[in-house]
């Protein structure tokens, strides 16, 4: 005999109530919202102008005037982190968008068709996957020239196989279920079943993978900027700031610590958010409590 406990009805209020009972979701959400708010604020106001170089104020330690200190050109680090957030978020968001937009349909198609189409797609996928992402991104930006747009494309391309794979694996687990058979017996085609039944059932999976890729995107952008292939000066970016800081680690540690912290906290927040969302949307998590 199987044991079944009746689950509460899944209403919007119910989901919200669950969301506010989930600590990692709340913390993740707070951090993410903070980063987004800071990025938005930077459009209208920053403590100092990040394009203005004040050599007289160079490499100052944190003080009341410059909370996070200044860099070797006398720019305010807090202001640069605020503007850099904008860059990081934009790059990661678009990169995840590219990955999902192309990867999810590819994976769903491979799972639905199976056979040769599936094999071919997944082997091409493996090929892309086999390149170290950062190395290939360097290659792409080296060919098309450095810059934020090319960085986005490069990171986006490496999100495609990730999403294709996750989608395919999730979809393959749903396809043999009886309700899919019932839908086929009702004469629905592969596309229709994918849209109506498969995707809603793997949405949680994709959402969680999305937050992970978003965090990785921020890291990748920082990495690309660090080697000088991301956003170009004078546009500040977190990775670029770390690059500038590395030779002054001993004399001006704040130049490395604050952008580094910004990256760590943002990635942590996104991962917590992803965990939280997975918990909330997973029907089994309701039983655990």
């Amino acid at each position, binding site marked *: *005999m199987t*044991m079944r406990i009746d689950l509460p*009805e899944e209403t919007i209020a119910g989901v919200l109530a669950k969301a506010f009972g989930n600590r990692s979701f709340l913390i993740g959400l707070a951090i993410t919202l903070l980063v987004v708010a800071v990025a938005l604020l930077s459009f209208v106001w920053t403590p100092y102008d990040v394009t203005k170089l004040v050599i007289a104020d160079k490499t100052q330690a944190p003080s009341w005037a410059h909370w996070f200190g200044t860099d070797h050109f006398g720019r305010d680090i807090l202001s640069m982190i605020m503007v850099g957030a904008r860059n990081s978020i934009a790059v990661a968001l678009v990169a995840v968008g590219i990955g999902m937009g192309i990867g999810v349909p590819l994976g769903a198609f491979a799972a639905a068709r199976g056979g040769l189409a599936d094999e071919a797609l997944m082997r091409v996928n493996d090929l892309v996957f086999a390149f170290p992402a950062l190395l290939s991104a360097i290659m792409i930006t080296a060919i098309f020239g450095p810059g934020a747009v090319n960085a986005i494309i490069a990171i986006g391309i490496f999100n495609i196989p990730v999403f294709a794979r996750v989608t395919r694996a999730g979809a393959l687990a749903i396809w043999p*279920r009886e*309700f899919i058979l019932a839908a086929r*017996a*009702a*004469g629905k085609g592969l596309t229709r079943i994918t849209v109506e039944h498969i995707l*809603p059932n793997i949405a949680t999976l994709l959402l969680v993978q999305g937050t992970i890729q978003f965090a990785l995107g921020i890291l990748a952008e920082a990495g690309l900027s660090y080697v000088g292939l991301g956003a170009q000066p004078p546009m500040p970016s977190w990775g670029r700031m770390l690059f500038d800081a590395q030779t002054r680690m001993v004399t001006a540690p704040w130049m490395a610590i604050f952008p580094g912290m910004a990256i760590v906290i943002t990635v942590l927040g996104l991962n917590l958010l992803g965990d939280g969302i997975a918990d909330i949307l997973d029907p089994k998590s309701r039983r655990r409590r």
Partner: protein
Amino acid sequence: MSLLEIENLSLTISATPILKGVDLAIAAGEVVGLVGESGSGKSMTALTIMRLLPHLARAKGRVAFDGIDILGASEDQMCALRGDDIGMVFQEPMTALNPVKTIGEQVAEGIRWHTKAGRAEAEERARKILDRVGLPEAKFPLSRYPHELSGGQRQRVVIAIACALKPKLLIADEPTTALDVVLQAQILDLLRDLVSENRMGLLLISHDLAVVTEMADRLTILRRGEVTEAGDTARTLSEQSHPYTRELALASMHVPARPKPHPAGSAKPLLEVESVGRDYPGRRKSLIRPAQPIRAVDDVSLTIEPAQSVALVGRSGCGKSTLARMILALDKPTAGTIRFRGEPITGKPESALRPARRDMQVVFQDPYGSFDPRQKVEKLVAEPLHLLEKQPTKAERREMVAHALHEVGLGPRDMDKYPHEFSGGQRQRLSIARAIITRPKLVVADEPVSALDVSIRAQILDLFAELNQKLGIAYLFITHDLTVARAMADEVLVMHEGKIVERGPAADVLDHPRSEAAQALVAAAPDLHRAIARKMQEQG
């Protein structure tokens, strides 16, 4: 003194009462049957004895096993008991075994843990017990993995694990529900032998009254967490003094009232299956020779007339579900043709199949798995409607769904619920509503009642009979349960290893089976009348 004594056991899970004052006792060498419908608390009673309850469960009362107070025992004491003095057999042999470990390792594991025996010694004992449960090493080496065994063989491994250390008490929770009747009879025989050999106590949990009657010395009937009746099997079932006992017994033997059986050969056939075969690619045994295909369905022919009800019976793995899929055009036959209303449906593109699909629907076995958990009933039941030539408007669609729900005994308010808000029986009604919404001519039902409780089973069978009469739907029932065939079918086909080995009017085939396969099925099928009669003789 009894081996196991449960007195006044009450159990709550986060304030919901699950068990209320349950009393139960088992002596050494005794078989006690625990009967009840789903949600009655049978499994929770078993889990209490093992102290494997969910976290929020609170148990009160007294549970004494062999002089040990189970509810007060420490976790270490329980670990020593579980698997050594108390063994447990679960329902699903597919999930009760670890798929990445060999059967030898899984049997030896418990032996080594409890007896501190060495690897070689534990393996030797594992070999012995596997041999005892009918898996001799010559045919089933210890290095086999669970997926290399059939369902019945896997259940034998589960029993071997539970009985490896000769436990004083064995708890078997629906041990044969997932198996076909022939395997069920074999597993029950094995359990009976093990009980008499080791003077083991056996707590047999089942929803199937006939199975429990055949096995148990005493019966305890559970309903909503309360014991309604307990006593000797023969007396309890022959007197049926408690109304619930009578209700259960009646539901187990329920045969829906049907009008005269459909006269054969009176009309143009609705469905014609002509020497259909289906091969699956086999496993390659040599590099040079091509793999031998596995023939799942072999040269099968059958016809179904309008409003006729046909049952296809056979053991699991005999190819009946494959045949059903081909009839529903979900799978392509490798040989032969299938015609629906005179039109061939084999090898046609999906777009050309629409009219046939509209008139041919399906009801699956598992009422939990056959609905998308993320959609509401309105959308789920309306799924086949897109096959209609003229797409109904939203209001019309709701009207049609409401009508279909009404026909299966559900209300229009149920439209806006999710499938998990329904009980198993209600879900099977939803499944039927979905199947009849396009007013089909043929419904293929694959084990439609085998996952349901007896009383709900009776209701669903009645519903099938009623719809057959009202709407003139023809049925193809696919089942290993002969009582369903007897209750519902005009004609019975017996399938064995991909072939139809016997066919004829239901009463003829089931009362006087001629083929060996049919005889085996009939002999193994549990029958409450027969079981009670036998118990009466034994227990006087």
